[in-house]
């Protein structure tokens, strides 16, 4: 428990403070090592700045002995400021990486070397967790730390997953079904399980995520590439502007120093967004990780922002946990005791929460629960039969949806009582789920199961609607029940009596009309649909197949997490867009600072263009480059936190961001450069 408590604390500190001292230290050294042209080359904007910096270095040295390029001090300062610009940009990327790494580390810490009880030829050997390979079996008992990600193949256990989810309530994981997955680093609190290792060491989702954040396998997303092209275009325009300025200036008999050319160029190209671009991308994945979602690629986060349709399972997402049995309704001419006995017998073999709730209700109404007879043979629920039950010698009991039981009953030539049909309808239209129970093709009665809708879920759906996301509830319930719950919870659409292929078909149909679909799932059944969906989020508790098929894994197993993921995706794009706008809008003020400074010596009439009344050409140019450099670290927090998304409609959002970042981007540098000039003019 100590270990997990520690990591929770650790997570808290990393999520509240923007960065710790340790991260800053790490990032600072990385900022220097990232200066290597091989790395800079991938960012065309900053690469050109690096070239400019090198040129300024040479010019500074030249100006020690030759005065025609301005004083050494002036050139050296320009060089130094450009160098800082590079470092700031690298630092932004490095700090984003450090944050992501720290977050990932705090998760990884929980799965450091732990002893594992390897099961080999029915013998238990104690080995180190790092030596486990995919397919190995191990045993975990109460008090053990689970050494590796795996799937329970035998047994049931309560597990403390607080180390990864921060949730202190223990959870139950058991073999078979959709809750068979265990995560390395979590702790078994009771019972004993046999687990098969599902990942190779170093290949878990977390390891992949860390590699993504560290940049080793980070690929630019399509949108990032498109934006890079636009920024490269802007850079090219300014190369043309600055190159053509040389003959223009010669013609006007205005000598322009190299420092002035390079300053003009560096100020005009979009260094602000260029310097922060990769930090924004990394921070997006990092924010997902902070929400306890592991993404397999940056693209998945981006796509999440575009989602049009969201498929949500009813159970656990819209309604609290599982349905509970609330009533027994015996069929006409059937004794209540016989009915309840059959119900209990069939539920004793039923491990589902619904089955357990039936037993609970039976004992509540005073029925003594018998032991399960030895000859009982469980008939499990399948999506095809939509019924389960038990066979006891020549007695067979089935419970399930009305139409499936009706089928079974009528096949044997027995009649299906009209009253039962009526009763099921009235239960369903009140949001309940009727389960019809029959014994040897004779209807005995109906069990009513009721759902409880989570509080606050309506508001979340309302928020999604405002974002333009359509919510679809997926449920195995009959259409009447489904409709009742859908209306009550406020979802836009529902799929009732859903079979696994229904989800798949629904997704395909929506995609065919051009929509992007996200879904969350946990079962092996969900795997094809998760793979088909544009964004598939698997719960960490889900099966390995589901996790493999999805592009994100939610460590909290929280089905409403998709809402957060959509917002993180939107934030990512918005941060890029607003900072691009800001960066380019800045150029207006920089032009008004530098252009008059270039020409005013030989064309004094152009003093009229110096609308900021900057002190001297040197102070104007220095103020502009200094502003250009320091705006990067000033904006790092914004790049890391992301621009806040507000579901106020696209046009209103555009208007807001245009005013804040567009108009703000025009005005802020006028003020900033003027203030810097007042300071710099003390020396220049």
């Amino acid at each position, binding site marked *: 428990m100590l270990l997990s408590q520690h990591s929770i604390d650790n997570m808290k500190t990393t999520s509240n403070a923007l960065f710790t001292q340790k991260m800053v230290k790490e990032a600072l050294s990385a900022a220097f090592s990232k200066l290597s042209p091989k790395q800079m080359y991938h960012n065309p904007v900053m690469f050109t700045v690096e070239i400019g910096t090198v040129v300024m270095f040479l010019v500074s040295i030249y100006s020690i002995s030759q005065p025609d390029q301005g004083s050494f001090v002036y050139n050296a300062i320009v060089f130094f400021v450009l160098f800082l610009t590079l470092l700031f940009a690298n630092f932004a990327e490095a700090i984003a990486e450090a944050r992501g790494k720290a977050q990932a580390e705090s998760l990884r810490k929980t799965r450091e070397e732990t002893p594992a009880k390897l099961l080999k030829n029915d013998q238990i050997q104690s080995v180190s967790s790092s030596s486990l390979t995919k397919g190995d079996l191990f045993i975990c008992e109460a008090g053990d730390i689970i050494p590796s990600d795996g799937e329970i193949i035998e047994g049931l256990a309560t597990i403390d997953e607080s180390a990864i989810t921060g949730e202190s309530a223990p959870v139950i994981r058991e073999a078979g079904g959709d809750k068979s997955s265990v995560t390395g680093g979590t702790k078994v609190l009771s019972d004993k399980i046999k687990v098969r290792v599902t990942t190779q060491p170093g290949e878990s989702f977390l390891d992949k995520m860390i590699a993504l954040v560290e940049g080793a396998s980070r690929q630019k997303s399509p*949108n990032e*590439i*498109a*934006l890079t*092209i*636009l920024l*490269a*275009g802007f850079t*090219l*325009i300014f190369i*043309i*502007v600055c*190159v*053509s*300025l*040389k*003959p*223009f*200036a*010669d*013609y*006007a008999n205005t000598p322009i120093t190299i420092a002035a050319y390079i300053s003009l160029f560096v100020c*005009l190209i979009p260094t602000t967004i260029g310097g922060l671009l990769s930090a924004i991308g990394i921070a997006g994945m990092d924010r997902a990780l902070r929400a306890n979602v592991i993404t397999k690629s940056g693209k998945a986060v*981006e796509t999440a*922002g*575009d989602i*049009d349709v969201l498929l949500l399972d009813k159970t656990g997402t819209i309604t609290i946990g599982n349905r509970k049995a609330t009533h027994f309704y015996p069929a006409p001419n059937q004794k209540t005791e016989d009915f309840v006995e059959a119900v209990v017998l069939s539920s004793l073999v039923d491990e589902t929460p619904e089955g357990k709730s039936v037993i609970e209700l039976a004992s509540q109404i005073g029925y003594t629960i018998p032991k399960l007879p030895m000859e009982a043979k469980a008939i499990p629920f399948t999506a095809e039969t939509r019924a389960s039950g038990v066979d006891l010698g020549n007695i067979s009991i089935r419970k399930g949806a009305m139409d499936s039981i009706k089928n079974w009953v009528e096949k044997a030539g027995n009649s299906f009582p009209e009253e039962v049909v009526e009763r099921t309808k009235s239960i369903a239209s009140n949001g309940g789920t009727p389960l019809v129970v029959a014994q040897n093709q004779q209807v005995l009665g109906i069990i009513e199961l009721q759902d409880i809708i989570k509080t606050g879920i309506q508001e979340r759906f309302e928020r999604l609607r405002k*974002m*333009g*996301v*359509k919510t679809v509830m997926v449920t195995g319930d009959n259409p009447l029940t489904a409709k009742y719950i859908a209306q009550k919870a406020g979802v836009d659409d529902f799929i009732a009596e859903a079979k696994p292929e229904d989800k798949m078909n629904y997704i395909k149909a929506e995609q065919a*009309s*051009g*929509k992007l679909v996200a879904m969350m799932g946990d079962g092996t059944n969900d795997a094809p649909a998760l793979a088909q969906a544009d964004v598939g989020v698997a719960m960490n508790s889900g099966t390995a197949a589901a996790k493999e098929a999805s592009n994100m894994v939610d460590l909290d197993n929280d089905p409403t997490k998709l809402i957060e993921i959509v917002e993180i*995706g939107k*934030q*990512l*794009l*918005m941060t890029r*867009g*607003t900072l*691009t706008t800001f960066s380019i*809008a800045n*150029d*207006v003020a920089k*032009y008004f600072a530098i252009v*008059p400074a*270039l020409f005013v010596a030989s*064309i004094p*009439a*152009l003093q009229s*263009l110096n609308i900021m009344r900057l002190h001297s050409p040197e102070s104007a140019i220095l103020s502009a480059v200094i502003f250009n450099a320091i705006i990067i670290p000033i904006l790092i927090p914004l790049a890391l936190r992301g621009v806040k998304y507000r579901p106020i*409609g*696209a*046009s209103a*959002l*555009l208007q807001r*961001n*245009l005013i804040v970042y*567009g108009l703000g981007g025009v005005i802020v540098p006028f003020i900033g450069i003027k203030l810097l000039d007042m300071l710099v003019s003390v020396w220049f």
Partner: protein
Amino acid sequence: METDLLGIVATFILTILLAWPLGKYISAIYTGAPHWSDKIFGGIERLFYKIGGINPKLEMTWQESLKALLSINLIWFLFAMFILMNQGWLPWNPDHNPSMSPDLAFNTAVSFLVNCNLQHYSGETGMSYLGQITCLMFLQFVTAATGMAACAVVFKAMREQTSQKLGNFYTYFIQSNTRILLPLALVVAGLLLFEGVPMNIEGKANIHTLEGNAVQVARGPAAAMVAIKQLGTNGGGFFGANSSHPLENPTYWSNAIESISIILIPIAMVFALGFYLNRKKLALVIFGVMTVGFLALIAPALYFEWQGNPAIDHLGVTQTLGNMEGKETRFGTTLSTYWAIITTVTSNGSVNAMHDSLMPLTGMSALLGMMINALYGGVGVGFLNFYVFIIIAVFIAGLMVGRTPELFGKKIEAREMKIATLIALLHPFLILLGTGIATYVAHQKPDIGWLNNPGFHGFSEMLYEYTSSAANNGSGFEGLGDNTPFWNISTGIVLILSRYIPIIGPVAIAGILAKKKHIPSGAGTLQLDTLTFGILMFAVILILVALAFFPALTLGPLAEHFSLK
């Protein structure tokens, strides 16, 4: 001046009122649905289809459309070269004007082929009537129709949900001629005839003036050519002095008719987009952006022309009529300034005053009109240029609202951005590079004889020449001695590049987008027909142009303006 101001306001409003139904008509034609005009024009069109071996129902991809466009352009070029170089012995040459030399023929053929109409000859002495009509006037029709047909392909691509087939280019092209340009040109030419523009095939008239001198007055089939030079944003006049010539533009009314003709189709194309896509509000937003830009150019221009030249003020000469240098007295400052701006925002280039004599900041407005080249713009191509700005604006706006950028349900990705960025880059690249080389030469060899006005104004002249070429405009700051191999060749290259690449780019983007999967619009989709998006589009245009040209404008018109004392 107040009456003149009322006059241009009325002209502008009348143009818009005419452009609205014209836009509806253009949209109906490009839609291709049965239309009343079929009965009138169907017969002649079928004849063209038969001669050309065209199946008008066969739809083409964007690549096929561009191939068709480029190949017919090549044929016209060869045809024009043949006529220009042989007009001396060919018939219909009453004044016995000579054939052109190869380099002049090349220059003329290219500039008419690209809808620019840079004229290094004078119509009166350099062209036969055969050349004027079958070569130059022919090109004025077909090149205008080329731009419109390319624009129709983009319209169609924007409308399709997912399709490779974007209509038949030849059909768009022929119908643009038969149903839009020809009928309109007939009407305008007819009106001009009433105002006194000549339309005959006789040679020069010999006139004895009251002073007893013998004067030769050039005439010819001018009215027809003047009509299409304005309607098709060509700008190439029948006479050397263009629309300041008293026989090309004799009266206030002929001036008004021609002013309307210059921006009629460019505005109508924007409205046509609204009708065609059934997005009238979007068309109005685009028109609004263009108009705000237009007003922002014309307002300072009028102000500075009315103020007159401070240097003349210092001489003690009153300038109640404003800056009259280089203006025709029958038009005055207001009408000439209005013309100077409408001819530069569209890629027309016809002039009714000397642009070289405009006040520096009026000249800057004219320059900016051509640097943007999308405020109404040339027929068809103006919208194509604007389309690139829309793509960039949509991309930025999409990011700002947290959604992968999309235009009418089509995602804008790396490939489209690459093309759009390239097209947006090309215009400043050609202008700045050309001007850069020219200023370099002018600086190295001050006695080369290009510049009659050294200093800032000379710089503006060189900048104007390349801007006019890159915008396929054709007007000039005529103070520049530009009839030299350097200028002929360098502007010729700029002309060709800046005509075809900005047609190929937008058509390619639209074609690629048309092929993509269509995403239905939802609550999260950004609506483009809003004031906010309009402001963004305006800001994108302003920033892109201002950023690229600010230093050049500083050394030219701005430096000249601030130095005027």
